[in-house]
């Protein structure tokens, strides 16, 4: 019988036998993919072991404890994998899933458009069938890593006479073609984490349509659900003390290099979140800890961030226990916005006029300045707070839905 105990034992035994930190990343991940240890909650016929989430989490935990590298998970890859697993054809699964896990392909997500940031189903990317392929024209935005992605998950309009949500189709698009041009989008904090993607007579193979014609919104919801689960931090986490593990093998070096590339767009994210960890140390090092006004603001911040953390853990505990999700599970994003803003206030109060400065003249090697000009992104990225509030009010609190102004044929909606 499979239970956590036996699974943990088995994976440890397997790792003892096969783990070799001097394999190449590709060699090792190929092994993981072939044996199913890389994604144990995927089905057995598709590189997994068909484990329930709890057992998969146990496997991941053992990997972390052991110090073994996992399959390629960074970026959009796992979202692509999960979506294709659920909606992809046999051929698509064959073509893509394996190379996702081995890390050979990278992916990006082409959903948002300049005219439909919060309203993803409002896509106006025009897609017309010509023989055995589709011709795509349109513009996408807020696309992380598009500039080095091999493939894109594309949501585009194929029927303008259908209502908004019914005229969309989901595709996989080859990013390496002349019709696809990506341009990095500079942010107010000087980073450029996102791309604009311009598609001009770009080509999508007919067999790269995912799901039925006109059913793209349903497929996109799968991608979004997996994205949200990750954002809410509701996926199991595991950690091990770095010091316990010898990371001198060549595979670690290769993994770090991969990580550096994949994580580059995100390096300012800790600052975006407000760097609550620095608040107390900064107050102490500047002596502002003796200012009762600062103490009050600092206390409010630390209460807020602790409570947000505990709320997330309540949600995770309930999920792991298989209980129905309570309201606490959907509040993470709103809480994060409050935390980040409160943190910006505290850092400003603590740093005084130094808050005018940035880069090397800003305290903590520029971190404080970067916080102050990055925090405004928290309440926007990944769905604005306003959208989040709509969702919570309607789904969690069961309050009436907003009257819609976007029903009827989509071409008419555009004229409203």
């Amino acid at each position, binding site marked *: 019988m499979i239970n956590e105990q036996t699974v943990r034992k088995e994976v440890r035994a397997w790792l003892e036998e096969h783990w070799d930190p001097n394999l190449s990343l590709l060699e090792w991940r190929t092994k993981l993919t072939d044996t199913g240890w890389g994604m144990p909650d995927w089905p057995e016929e598709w590189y997994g072991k068909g484990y329930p989430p709890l057992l998969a989490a146990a496997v991941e935990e053992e990997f972390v404890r052991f110090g073994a590298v996992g399959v390629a998970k960074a970026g959009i890859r796992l979202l692509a994998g999960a979506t294709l697993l659920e909606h992809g054809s046999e051929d698509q699964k064959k073509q893509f899933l394996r190379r996702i896990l081995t890390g050979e392909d990278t992916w990006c997500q082409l959903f948002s458009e300049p005219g439909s940031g919060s309203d993803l189903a409002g896509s106006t990317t025009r897609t017309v069938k010509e023989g055995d392929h589709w011709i795509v024209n349109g513009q996408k935005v807020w696309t992380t890593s598009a500039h080095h992605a091999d493939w894109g998950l594309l949501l585009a309009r194929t029927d303008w006479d259908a209502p908004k949500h019914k005229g969309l189709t989901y595709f996989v698009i080859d990013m390496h073609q002349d019709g696809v041009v990506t341009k990095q989008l500079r942010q107010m904090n000087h980073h450029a984490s996102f791309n604009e993607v311009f598609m001009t007579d770009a080509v999508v193979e007919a067999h790269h349509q995912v799901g039925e014609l006109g059913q793209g919104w349903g497929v996109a919801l799968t991608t979004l659900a997996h994205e949200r689960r990750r954002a809410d931090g509701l996926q199991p986490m595991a950690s091990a003390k770095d010091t316990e593990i010898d990371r001198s093998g060549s595979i670690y070096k290769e993994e770090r290099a991969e990580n550096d590339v994949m994580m580059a767009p995100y390096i300012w994210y800790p600052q975006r979140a407000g760097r609550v960890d620095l608040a107390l140390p900064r107050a102490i090092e500047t002596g502002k800890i003796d200012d009762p006004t600062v103490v009050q603001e600092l*206390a409010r911040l630390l*209460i807020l961030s602790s409570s947000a953390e505990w709320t997330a853990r309540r949600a995770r505990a309930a999920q792991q226990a298989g209980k129905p999700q309570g309201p*606490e599970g959907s509040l993470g994003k709103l809480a994060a916005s*409050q935390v980040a803003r409160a943190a910006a206030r505290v850092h400003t109060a603590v740093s005084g006029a130094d808050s005018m400065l940035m880069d090397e003249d800003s305290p903590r090697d520029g971190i404080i300045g970067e916080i102050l000009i990055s925090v405004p992104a928290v309440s926007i990225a990944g769905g604005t707070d306003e959208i989040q509030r*709509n969702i919570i009010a309607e789904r969690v609190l069961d309050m009436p839905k907003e009257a819609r102004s976007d029903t009827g044929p989509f071409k008419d909606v555009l004229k409203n």
Partner: protein
Amino acid sequence: MEFQFTGEQEQFREFVRRFFNDTTPTTEVRRIMETESGFDESIWQRLANELSLTGISIPEAYGGSGFGTVELGIAMEEMGRCLYPSPFLASSVLAAKALEFVAGENQKAELLPAIAAGEKIATLAFLENEGAPVVTDINCTAQGSDSEFKLDGTKQFVLDATVADYFLVTAMTDKGLSLFQVDGSTAGLNINALKVIDQTRRVSRVELNNTPGELIGEEGAAQDGLEQALNIAFLALANESVGGAERLFEDTLEYTKLRRQFGRTIASFQAIKHRMTEYLLNVELAKSAAYYTAEAADIGAEDLAKLASIAKASASEAYLQAGIESIQLHGGIGFTWENNTHLWFKRAKSSEVFLGDPAWHHARMIERMVEEQAA
């Protein structure tokens, strides 16, 4: 930390909630709060006899149920939901915990069982002047030796003093901070019931004038135990507050779905929807802090003082905010006496400043954190 209640705890909550639904609907709260004592003896006796709740967190060795702080928190939360007016916080929390942590073995064996059984009502008289819950830095004094002390001074904001059988009074002796038992009927004890905003929570000013008191525990050694007791009281009040805030939230959400203006329910207005989500967030964050702190107390967390202040400050602010928001969302009707919202608003107002206002707890919390960093 488990971050969730066990099945037994959920059952316990259900059980307690059902009891209060039966015995203390809001009509009953309104009746009790209009009485002079603000206390109903019969419900109290049922609480003691049917639920043994009066001794919930008193050790079994002293006649209590020996439950943990989490269960105490659940009970407080449910009392906060229904606004149960009683000396539970005074007697079963403040006094019982003060005895547990300060009294000697014989005194515990003598005094705690009667509290646990709901037969005696005790209260802790320790606040002075502005009512900040500082244990030391008091003016009340005691002179004497052994079992024979005389107390002088004034205690403020003494909870349920008019129904207490006896008082546990803090006073300074030559040896330092000490705790004394003072009988409620002693001559030289002057109890002034104060007019209060929240009629479901009564406080008095108690004047001691050469009043005899019996030493509890060792002379001059009360400080640590009292601070332990207070941490439990802070988190108990926090749990009570999040119960009240959650009830306000639920009632208000329901009201927005019923109340119609301009041909639609007010719940259908986006501005109301967005505010309800912020309201929800506010309550859930405070609940998390209150729950976490109760769990932390049960595993003997070293930073309990810090956590108790977090829980108290957070719950105080969330509850008051809930009260303000609920009245506003009820509109004119929310400001009337007939509507129930103000009862919780007033409890929130009272709980905001009782046992230390948020600013006081913020300062205490950061002080502890700076000490942690230095250590």
